[in-house]
């Protein structure tokens, strides 16, 4: 498991984190290639099942990056996302998994550096946790309908 | 006279009555009951026997009541509607009466949540008002709750509790009125520490003429310490302990606090005696039965009338 490169899915809000990632790019601030960004119109659009499916398909970590608390373009989308992340964390705990594999992160559109920093930090955290526990199952993860 | 109850006779004579209580043990030793009863027997007209108080399992109030009755004393068995349905309660009233027990108290009881069996299902087939009515129906009409006539009805002098301090205050006189309507003969009140509020409640009781229909025994609890006073203020539901009481206890040394507590109790009794509708006292000396005699004497209520 040494030197393993985790796969991380980041659901990024179009109005903040996605723009911040863009800014990081244009400022030439690098962030780990482990992080695969999925743009969403608002983190409120991310449901618990999306996070679960990412894990089911083998993601080692998932985070939802939304606007700063109180700054949601759609008022409460990021607050809802925070609760959904917490719900998935609870499910993981109930299964005996590390709940730290999923996280909610907040930032504004101008925070290119914060985007890169959180991407680094989250990647490091997932590296320390090791691969998605389903890899212990020693079977190919099959596509699940 | 409705019954053979000594308490009824004392109250009928116009004298102020005194009752106190014995908490049955959490084991089978009858000596504990006898010992506690002996401590107070010469200073009271009736001995309440609590019924799984604070929802903790104890020797049943009827069994402990029988032990006390067999000592030639006058038990007042408490019965909570929490633990039995109406079949069980009627049969227990009959059973108690068969042993000569003639005075009882109808209560709803503390919620099981407070006791050592919080997982138990509370019964609450009927409430305390309905229990009063059920016992009265047996005594005066010779009727079971199911409607059938009974032979040899139990002659019970029927008591209940009244808490002038619980919310909503304005409902508390009406609550007593309902118990009177159901047929209660006497009530013992919650421990009184807030005398102004009690006087206000009693005024409401007198205004409605309830004092002529029911005997009110004022509840007295001597505080052992300032710690106990704080606990009762903050932790016991429906208890009203004014800050002055706590201040007064805190104002003396720890060794002096029990004496101060008894002094407060006696002073309260002196003041409460002046209220027209107060026909006696119910002294709840929690795990402090040995001081009941002294309180009764200091309040000038000893010896007890012979009836």
């Amino acid at each position, binding site marked *: 498991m040494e030197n393993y490169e985790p796969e991380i899915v980041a659901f990024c809000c179009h109005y903040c984190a996605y723009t911040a990632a863009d800014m990081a790019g244009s400022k030439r601030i690098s962030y780990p290639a482990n992080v695969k960004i999925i743009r969403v119109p608002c983190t409120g659009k991310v*449901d*618990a*099942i999306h996070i*679960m*499916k990412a*894990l*089911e398909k083998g993601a080692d970590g998932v985070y939802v990056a939304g606007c700063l608390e109180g700054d949601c373009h759609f008022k409460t989308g990021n607050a809802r996302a925070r609760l959904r992340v917490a719900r998935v964390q609870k*499910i993981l705990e*109930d*299964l005996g*998994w590390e709940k730290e594999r999923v996280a909610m992160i907040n930032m504004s559109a101008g925070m290119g550096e914060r985007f890169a920093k959180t991407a680094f930090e989250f990647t490091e955290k997932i590296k320390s946790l090791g691969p998605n*526990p*389903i890899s*212990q*199952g*020693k*079977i190919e*993860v*099959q596509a*699940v309908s | 006279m409705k019954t053979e109850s000594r308490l009824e006779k004392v109250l009928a004579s116009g004298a102020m009555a005194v009752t106190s209580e014995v908490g049955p043990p959490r084991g089978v030793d009858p000596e504990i009951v006898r010992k506690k009863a002996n401590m107070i027997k010469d200073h009271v007209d009736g001995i309440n026997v609590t019924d799984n108080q604070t929802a903790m399992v104890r020797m049943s109030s009827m069994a402990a009541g029988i032990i006390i009755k067999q000592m030639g004393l006058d038990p007042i068995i408490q019965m909570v*509607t*929490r633990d039995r349905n*109406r079949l069980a309660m009627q049969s227990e009233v009959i059973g108690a009466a068969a042993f000569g027990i003639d005075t009882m108290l109808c209560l*709803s*009881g*503390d*919620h099981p*949540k*407070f006791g050592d069996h919080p997982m138990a299902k*509370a019964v*609450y*087939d*009927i*409430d*305390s*008002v*309905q229990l009063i*009515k*059920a016992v009265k129906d047996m005594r005066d009409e010779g009727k079971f*709750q199911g409607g059938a006539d009974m032979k040899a009805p139990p002659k019970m002098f029927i008591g209940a*509790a*009244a*808490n002038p301090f*619980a*919310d*909503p205050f304005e*409902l508390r006189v*009406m*609550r007593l*009125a*309902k118990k009177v*309507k*159901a047929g209660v003969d006497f009530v013992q009140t*919650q421990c009184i520490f807030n005398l102004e509020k009690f006087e206000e409640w009693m005024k409401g009781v007198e205004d409605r003429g309830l004092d002529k229909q029911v005997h009110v025994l004022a509840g007295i609890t001597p505080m052992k310490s300032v710690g106990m006073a704080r606990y009762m203020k903050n932790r016991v*539901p*429906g208890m009203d302990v004014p800050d002055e009481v706590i201040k007064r206890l805190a104002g003396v040394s720890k060794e002096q606090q029990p004496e101060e507590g008894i002094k407060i109790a006696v002073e309260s009794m002196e003041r409460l005696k002046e209220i027209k509708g107060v026909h006696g006292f119910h002294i709840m000396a929690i795990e402090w039965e040995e001081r009941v005699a002294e309180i009764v004497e200091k309040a000038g209520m000893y010896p007890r009338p012979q009836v």
Partner: protein
Amino acid sequence: MITAEQKPMQEIIQYLAPYSKILLVGCNECVTVCAAGGRKEVGLLASALHLNSLKQGKTIDIKEITLERQCDPEYVEELTSYIDAADAVLSMSCGCGVQTIATRFKQAHVYPAVNTKFMGASLSQGVWAERCQGCGDCMLGITAGICPVSRCSKSLLNGPCGGTSNGQCEIGPETDCAWRLIWERLKELGIEGRYEALVDAKDWRPAGGAGPRKIIREDLAL
């Protein structure tokens, strides 16, 4: 509605341990509204069960289906085409749905995935509170629209016990004293005199005291 909450995950996992083909059945009625066993919850639970078995190197085949109404044989019939392929049925409906499935499919191993809680009303999003115990003889007409049977911790019918503090029940500050609420509302309506009417001991037969209850509507039972 009937409220429910998902059972602890480990209990569900234990039930399913012997099986590899699961028919996971949700319900579009009450459990959807209280977010315990609707289509979304079916999806989430299926996903969690997948994660669990993948970790153990097993595969579990879960067929997800959410019926219009699991307590109705007409809709449960829809399971006919899936039932034979399943080793076990995991129902996310209230106990009524679980039993309707068990009655219809005699050979099926049926397990509940939720704990059925109470008949309640929604207070705000995500908050439900008990409002009815189905006593079969509604008293709301004499208690100003607030139920003492379901909302008083002791189901007292003649007023509050002595344990009320600051308008709250003795069992804890998160529970309003039902009789305080009844009293306040009687006053607001100007009918506080009603409080003093003695309420007789309740006949619990309609509440289930006479055995399991049934309603037969002759005009509908063709």
